[in-house]
């Protein structure tokens, strides 16, 4: 018995070492990117006058949406009383905080003058969606930290209230993040209610996917308790259902964009369908992000943990590319025709620089490192209450 326990501990330690090393390498790559950014400033990025938002913005959106998604899934237990989810909340909220912090770090390196964010308080502009998004996510982070603290201290009486505040804050912050794009009249590809609405669906999808991964990793070497297994199965089913909704949304988004001849809108859609972002759209966003995981989850009816894990990884990769595609495609149609940067196809172009890619990798490294640390220093296994 003792030998088995020692072996299990050794395996866990080796597993921990691999995670720590991976996180360390990714963080190191990020630090190299950061170093280059500090030396060269924004010149180290491939964004320019006509395409000022690049992969760092889309990565921030990815992290922020993941954060909200985890909070939404966690709220199933503490807000909506789904018993099976009562024990997954703490780990989910810890990861939500980590995802948001990682997102803030990435966007902090995109914003040219982050220290001047103090003017968000000193001279706020209430008509600016970025003001609402930034402020709501700031408050949201505070709510999540409070909720996590209450969970750690075992003050379950108050966790429900904090979780409700987190749920409302998450939905508000997330849809406001969608409005940062949706309110830009000049960018017809983004403009409209689609992004503020659909971003909630994708948040819940990413929340389900990450929850499955977190618990598959947690119980990789031991038997998963029945209630957690049930929570994961329910998550996989919600995950499949929401993927179906997302595919439905996506179909009508494509149809409405290509049916008409609205200047800018159809062009942006064609960039994704058969233009420079076609591989990223079809290969990653549609096949990896939606169709493959949807098929896997339907095939297993959400009951196979292995297939759910593959579906979750596949979807998260797809969602990462979905953010990239949304951000970039919205800018590649030029605002005026005669711009130096326009290519022979009449479109602008963008591909991330090595520095931008390094910072993105660093963001994921930070996320992994913080989760590794949280897993080590906090008891993320919530006891039933």
């Amino acid at each position: 018995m003792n030998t088995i326990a020692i072996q299990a501990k050794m395996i866990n330690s080796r597993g921990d070492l691999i995670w720590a090393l991976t996180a360390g390498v990714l963080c190191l790559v990020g630090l190299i990117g950061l170093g280059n950014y500090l030396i060269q400033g924004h010149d180290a990025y491939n964004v320019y006058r006509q395409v000022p938002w690049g992969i760092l913005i889309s990565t921030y959106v990815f992290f922020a949406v993941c954060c909200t998604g985890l909070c939404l899934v966690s709220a199933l237990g503490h807000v909506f009383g789904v018993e099976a989810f009562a024990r997954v909340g703490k780990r989910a909220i810890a990861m939500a905080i980590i995802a948001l912090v990682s997102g803030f770090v990435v966007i902090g390196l995109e914003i040219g003058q982050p220290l001047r964010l103090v003017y968000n308080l000193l001279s706020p502009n209430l008509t600016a969606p970025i003001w609402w998004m930034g402020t709501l996510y700031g408050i949201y982070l505070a709510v999540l930290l409070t909720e996590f603290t209450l969970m750690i201290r075992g003050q379950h009486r108050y966790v429900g209230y904090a979780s409700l505040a987190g749920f409302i804050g998450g939905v508000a912050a997330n849809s406001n993040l969608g409005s940062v794009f949706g309110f830009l009249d000049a960018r017809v590809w983004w403009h409209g209610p689609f992004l503020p609405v659909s971003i909630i669906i994708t948040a819940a999808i990413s929340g389900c996917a990450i929850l499955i991964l977190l618990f598959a990793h947690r119980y990789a070497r031991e038997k998963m308790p029945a209630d957690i297994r049930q929570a994961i199965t329910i998550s996989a089913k919600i995950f499949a259902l929401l993927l179906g909704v997302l595919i439905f949304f996506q179909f009508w988004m494509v149809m409405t964009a290509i049916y008409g001849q609205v200047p800018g809108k159809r062009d942006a859609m064609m960039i994704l369908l058969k233009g420079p972002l076609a591989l990223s759209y079809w290969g990653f966003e549609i096949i990896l992000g939606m169709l493959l995981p949807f098929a896997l989850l339907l095939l297993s009816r959400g009951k196979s943990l292995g297939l759910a894990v593959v579906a979750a990884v596949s979807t998260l990769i797809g969602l990462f590319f979905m953010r990239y595609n949304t951000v970039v495609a919205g800018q590649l149609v030029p605002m005026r025709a005669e711009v130096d940067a326009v290519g022979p196809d009449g479109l602008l172009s963008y591909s991330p620089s090595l520095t931008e890619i390094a910072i993105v990798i660093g963001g994921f490294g930070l996320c992994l490192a913080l989760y590794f640390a949280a897993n080590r220093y906090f008891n993320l296994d919530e006891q039933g209450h």
Partner: protein
Amino acid sequence: MSEPRTKRWVMVVDPRKCIDCKACDVACKRENKIDAKGRRETYRNWITSKGVEGVYPNLKQRFEPSQCQHCDNPPCVKVCPTSASYQTPEGLVMIDYKRCIVCASCILACPYDARYKSSQTKVIDKCTFCIHRIAEGKLPACVDTCPTKVRVFGDLNDPNSEVSRLLARHHYYVLKPEAGTKPSLFYLS
């Protein structure tokens, strides 16, 4: 109720007179001490070729000078989270550089591609209608320098100003009227 504006600064552009000499661009850079450092994306004003019109041998080429439109309903001001972008009482759209966080939201909100990140000031930059010259009773540098007098600058609230008289006498258009921005640049047609 807000006070009625005493002045509304506008620019009337006669694109038929433009010869694409780009003196406006050079004057702007010199006046505003803009060092482009070889970057082709650093400019506050520009000239667009509208292509060749007519049938041979009666051909003509038309150019369309442009810049920040100092919109009466500026989308860039609406989206700025820190109120760094603002409108003066005379309708000029300005940037308080010290408040700009360079989120670039204003660049994307502008339907005219008028804004850019300045590598000199490390914040967002654009045309100011040479507000410092207006304060001294002078014309904006691009207006002053234009050899063919493409641009006319003045107060639209003054019925006797040259801009008011030009707009009363000629047909004109604005760029992207569908954007609802109410630009302060009027093009004679």
